[in-house]
């Protein structure tokens, strides 16, 4: 398992990821030497810096085990960033090898482990943000399938679901006005159905959206999908 943002800010989302994977019968390793997938440097255009971090990450996760990441954008970085950053380098073939082992959490549960229905109950109304980096992958549909199968969980539909939340990594600080405006529009849509919480499969989007809510004094909870899956298990005593 790999994560850096959850290790820095959202430890409960990371713990929930471990508990969910263990419930599914996995043994979870968290290599302590891991740092970050290199996405910040890559997106900032500093590919030389990114390569340094990519090589570190590829070394840390050496082996055959699947690498599960509770974040669509980090998985996307591995799929579509590593090959670009290493293009023309002597170790370019490391990118596709690493990508083959890498899974976003929901994709891993539904398409890797073939678990399509989730037990337990979760009596809340949720507005789920389909993170942009999961476009063209099976993450969003997997997440929605899992959420849709949980007893008691109500999914709010809202307008312009294809639109970005405005985070975009360093974009959020270099273009703060556009970024925040995008976030406010996204939140307006998400709050249309009066949800009990906003949810996502990527804590980066929720860091940004939650940051706007906090700045404006709105106490709307934000949850990672792993936390919903874990809490549903706990409701039935499937997890202690």
């Amino acid at each position: 398992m790999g994560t850096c943002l959850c290790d820095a800010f959202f430890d409960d989302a990371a713990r929930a990821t471990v508990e969910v994977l263990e419930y599914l019968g996995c043994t979870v390793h968290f290599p302590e030497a891991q740092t970050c997938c290199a996405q910040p440097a890559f997106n900032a255009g500093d590919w030389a810096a990114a390569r340094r971090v990519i090589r570190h990450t590829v070394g840390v996760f050496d082996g055959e085990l699947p690498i599960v990441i509770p974040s669509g954008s980090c998985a996307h970085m591995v799929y579509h960033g590593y090959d670009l950053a290493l293009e023309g380098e002597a170790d370019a073939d490391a990118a596709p090898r690493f990508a083959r082992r890498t899974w976003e959490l929901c994709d891993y549960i539904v398409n890797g482990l073939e678990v399509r229905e989730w037990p337990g109950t979760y009596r809340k109304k949720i507005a789920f943000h389909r993170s942009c980096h999961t476009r063209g992958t099976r993450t969003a549909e997997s997440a929605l399938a899992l959420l849709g199968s949980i007893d008691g969980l109500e999914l709010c539909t809202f307008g312009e679901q294809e639109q970005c939340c405005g985070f975009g990594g360093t974009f959020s600080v270099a273009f703060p006005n556009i970024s925040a405006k995008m976030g406010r529009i996204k939140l307006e849509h998400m709050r249309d159905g009066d949800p009990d919480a906003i949810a996502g499969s990527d804590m980066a989007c929720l860091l940004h959206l939650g940051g706007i809510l906090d700045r404006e004094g709105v106490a709307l909870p934000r949850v990672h999908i792993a936390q919903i899956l874990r809490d549903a298990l706990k409701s039935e005593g499937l997890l202690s």
Partner: protein
Amino acid sequence: MKSTKAYPTRQPVDRYASDLSPSVQESVYNASKLKTEARVDALQRDFADPDANRRLAGAIKQHTLDHLDTYLEQAESSLRENGAAVHWASDAESANQIILGIMQRNDCRRMVKSKSMVSEETELVPFLEKNGMEAVETDLGEYIVQIDHDHPSHIVTPIIHKNRQEIARSFEREGLGAYDDDPTVITRRARDYLRSKYLEADVGLTGANFVSAESGRIVLVTNEGNARFSMAAPRIHIALVGIEKLVPKDRDLSLFLSLLARSATAQCLTVYTQFIGGPRHRTQRDGPEKMHVVFLDNRRTEVLSGDCRKILRCIRCGACMNVCPVYRQASGHAYRGVYPGPVGAVLSPLLKGKEFPELADLPKASSLCGACNEVCPVDIPIPELLLRLRNRAKHEHVSLAARGTPSMGIWARAASSPGAWKTALSAGRLLNVVPHGFLNLSSPARAWQSSRKLPPFRGGAFRKWMRERNPPKNGVPSPDRKSEPDS
């Protein structure tokens, strides 16, 4: 939700967006949103698998670009067989000179022209006016841009940033009747005025949406019929065409026309679709006596030889700008070039050549959300191209592009050293090296805090929990079959 005060940003596109008047922003946002929704409806209504169509169209365009030398030669000979003269312009200046030369040799003074982004690129109209020629835009939106001495802010709907009250005031100012903002009245007045211009003109200039290399047919689409009038009424027709506009065969056109109309305006077919097979034939009563085709390079060959060549697939539908959340906030003029939005953020800096640094901030004006690629009818991987240009800007040390983005050097050193990273985490000093720039005093941190708060920093809490409950068993593979989904 209440809006917060604008942050004094140093990025031009962000600043343009925060200075934009609310009414312009609203016009742009609403129009873009409506067009995006209509586009999705049109594609899903008519095609079982719209995605397959755009991938096929992308492959055909890429094939054409990969063999552009062959197809251009084929197009040239087909056009000559059809009776058209073919000219080659290496840059904007030579294209304008060729067009001026044609007008002078044929004793022409008045031009009517239909919409052509390439003519915006070469700044043809001001050039001709400076040389004593009259040139009138006949696309309604472009005509309004012309009388207002403005610039188009969208490649399909050039006046998406204007409302009808402004247009009515412009018409009044130009002596086209007393103030009346009824769209029907505005349109009728423009029509009456332009009608006389068509009849007076001795040369008509158009662009080309597609050119078939096989037959030399030039394909033009408009919803106002103005391209047809512009090319057919005057004595001479000049088509100014970017060299990337080719398709191999006539049969490819059904796919491209159906995708272009749906992607651009959510129509099944644009109202006027013309296939021009040459100047007036001796058996025909109407049409231009002569036809000239000017192929423009203007750094396209340079783009073709670089790693962003896929951008030349673009068929100028505008779907990427309609869906782009940054374009919706900033509007087209924020991009400071002929081509706005995601396609412009790639193409405009590339077409600048050595002056790339002037527009090197544009590739940064994106959250990389990928919506542009998802809607692109020729499947251009725009986010990948934006990333390549960000990397180029970094290589060339372009300060404009770097503004506001935290430097990654120190961060990369920490993120490739487990010791440094762990120390930073456990000491709570991650905040000092993490590139998202959440430092209290640095400007990225202030930019973040201007509209958002950070949650409490919990560095290392998770790995501590992990260590305590599950001491690492070095080298022991997962015993569970389920953790090997590929086997």
